């Protein structure tokens, strides 16, 4: 018997996308702005988040989720900022998904949080497929990874909103050409905003912090408009 062809139209990641949409709407209703951070392992996500949390903790109610395959080391590092932090241990899974975020938040009162930072598992490929319900996704690359990182991983750059070049204090030692790197970012994601920072010397951090505060205000105004305040 010849097989019968039936047409369907189903997004394979429908479950994740639906859950991410629900998360986004509960964040919005509770007035929480959510930023996520992706990069390769060792690009400096945790160092950057430590700095951001320590500074932002003084100004607003900020919390963080941090994903890793194993260990709670990063959560312990981030908790030194004084902000509430929770580790998501993914086991063998190479990315966070919306369900992991939902579970991690289950006993947190969202109305007690103004800004939630989510550090994804260090991976430049898999996280790009999964919406976590965030408002903005930051992609990090460090100067030791080479200027052509965006060309090698165009999808993760194209699906993120903001780029951050980290370890900028090492640029000269690593013979890193910032102009070329920024051109490559623009090539895979035209118009992308790029920040240059150093977690060691704090270069560029004030600008990035200011940007995050403005983004926080913009998303909370949007959420107020959405619930009609």
């Amino acid at each position, binding site marked *: 018997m010849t097989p019968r062809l039936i047409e369907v139209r189903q997004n*394979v*990641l429908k479950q994740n996308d639906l859950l991410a949409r629900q998360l986004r709407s509960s964040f919005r209703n509770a007035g929480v702005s959510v930023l996520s951070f992706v990069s390769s392992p060792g690009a400096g996500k945790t160092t950057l988040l430590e700095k951001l949390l320590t500074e932002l903790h003084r100004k607003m109610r900020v919390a963080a989720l941090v994903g890793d395959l194993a260990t709670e080391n990063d959560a312990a590092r981030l908790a030194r900022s004084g902000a509430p932090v929770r580790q998501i241990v993914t086991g063998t899974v190479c990315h966070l998904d919306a369900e992991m975020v939902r579970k991690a938040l289950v006993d947190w009162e969202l109305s007690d949080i103004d800004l939630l930072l989510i550090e994804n598992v260090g991976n430049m*490929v898999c996280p790009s497929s999964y919406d976590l319900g965030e408002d903005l996704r930051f992609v990090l690359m460090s100067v030791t990874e080479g200027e052509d990182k965006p060309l090698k991983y165009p*999808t993760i750059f194209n*699906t993120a909103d903001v780029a951050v070049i980290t370890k900028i204090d090492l640029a000269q030692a690593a013979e890193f050409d910032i102009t070329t790197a920024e051109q490559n970012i623009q090539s895979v994601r035209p118009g992308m905003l790029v920040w240059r920072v150093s977690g060691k010397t704090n270069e560029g951090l004030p600008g990035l912090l200011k940007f995050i505060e403005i983004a926080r205000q913009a998303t909370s105004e949007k959420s107020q408009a959405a619930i009609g305040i």
Partner: protein
Amino acid sequence: MHELSIALSIVDAAAEVAARRGAAQVKAVHLKLGPLSGVVKDALLFSYGVACEGTPLAGSRLLIEDVPVVAYCPECRSQQTIESIQRFACPGCGSLTPDVVQGNELLVTALEIAQ
């Protein structure tokens, strides 16, 4: 390497549709795949066979249609197919094209079933 979990999701989705239609067996799954989905075709094909084992999809084929990236060119005021995802630029005029209209598909479009 998240293709195995993607393959399992495809199998789940297809098995659910097949059950709804009263099909005993799925012979093939048609899938649209865009370069911005973050999914590697070869790894997905490899994982698919494993994911199908012990399900109504065992022995089925995964037929992948590669979908190109299409972006809107603000200069030409038209949609253009982007030749390389390393450069989001209009192939006609060279302008940068930030507005992607197609290319992140990971979509089951059809099933071939046997009653």
